[in-house]
């Protein structure tokens, strides 16, 4: 039995390679009844007719260009629901959201133009999300929402619904780039080195430790530079040639 499962797993992995599995996330819109114990009504997916107190609308493919996605649903009762937006995947590469509307009307702070000093968005609950202000990046206005770093991340806000009311929820979404993810991860190594250099600089006796060559680190940096050159076609001169992997 175990052997069969192993063969099946290998088969699935090879199929993924043949069909070109992707490392990029899609987007998931998930409306839910806020308190199913209190509000005993269901939401209806108008496309499929599916009824549940929690619906899932998935869009698997995002591109780097902004695109509007639309979902239509209705409620079978009066009450409060959550509108939750998040990535569909691992959360390793950022996705961006902007201009979230219900029946063509922007939700409160649906364009994420209001921003708190800590990067959160007033009117929204968020987990691992951040408002980014860059007119070149946002679809409209100056800001949009960036989700990154966790598959459970997302933004959500509540909305009052009425029985039988049809709602078209639409939003703009696009994917970020793997290069953003790499730069973000590499920032942690940079911070470590920065701190090591600072500490060593602050204490005379320690400076010599930090000035010592570190071949392990140098080899690792060169391996990354080589990968970047071969796979991403982005060239940076390597550190001393003696630190290359054999």
């Amino acid at each position: 039995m175990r052997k069969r499962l192993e063969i099946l797993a290998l088969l699935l992995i090879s199929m993924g390679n043949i069909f070109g599995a992707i490392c990029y996330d899609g987007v998931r819109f998930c409306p839910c009844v806020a308190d199913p114990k209190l509000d005993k009504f269901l939401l209806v997916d108008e496309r499929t007719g599916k009824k549940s107190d929690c619906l899932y609308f998935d869009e698997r493919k995002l591109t780097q260009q902004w695109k509007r996605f639309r979902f239509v649903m209705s409620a079978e009762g009066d009450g409060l629901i959550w509108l939750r937006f998040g990535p569909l995947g691992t959360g390793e590469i950022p996705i961006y959201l902007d201009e979230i509307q219900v029946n063509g009307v922007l939700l409160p702070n649906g364009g994420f133009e209001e921003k708190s000093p800590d990067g959160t968005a007033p009117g929204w609950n968020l987990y691992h999300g951040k408002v980014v202000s860059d007119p070149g990046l946002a679809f409209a206005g100056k800001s949009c929402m960036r989700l990154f770093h966790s598959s459970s991340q997302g933004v959500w806000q509540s909305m009052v619904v009425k029985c039988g009311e049809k709602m078209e929820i639409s939003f703009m979404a696009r994917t970020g780039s793997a290069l953003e993810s790499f730069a973000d991860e590499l920032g942690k190594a940079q911070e470590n080195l920065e701190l090591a250099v600072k500490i060593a600089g602050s204490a005379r006796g320690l400076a010599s430790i930090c000035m010592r060559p570190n071949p392990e680190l140098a080899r690792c940096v060169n391996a990354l530079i080589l990968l970047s050159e071969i796979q991403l076609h982005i060239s940076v001169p390597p550190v001393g040639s003696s630190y290359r992997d054999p």
Partner: protein
Amino acid sequence: MTPEALRDKLLDLTKAWDAERRRSAGDELPCLYDKPEVFADIKNRILELTQFSAELKIDVLLDLVFMKKKELL
């Protein structure tokens, strides 16, 4: 190659990635869109680098602690 020089090299690499990201922002599909194995390779290298740099940071911190302790004694 000192940690200071390596830090500067990583900064150069980050700048080069950022320049490429800006250059390719108009492309419909981002880089490595259908190459998850390459994405994982590069991520693993970065994680390894983060681990080595964290070890160096801890070494320097411990040296500082012991040096201060010696000064007090």
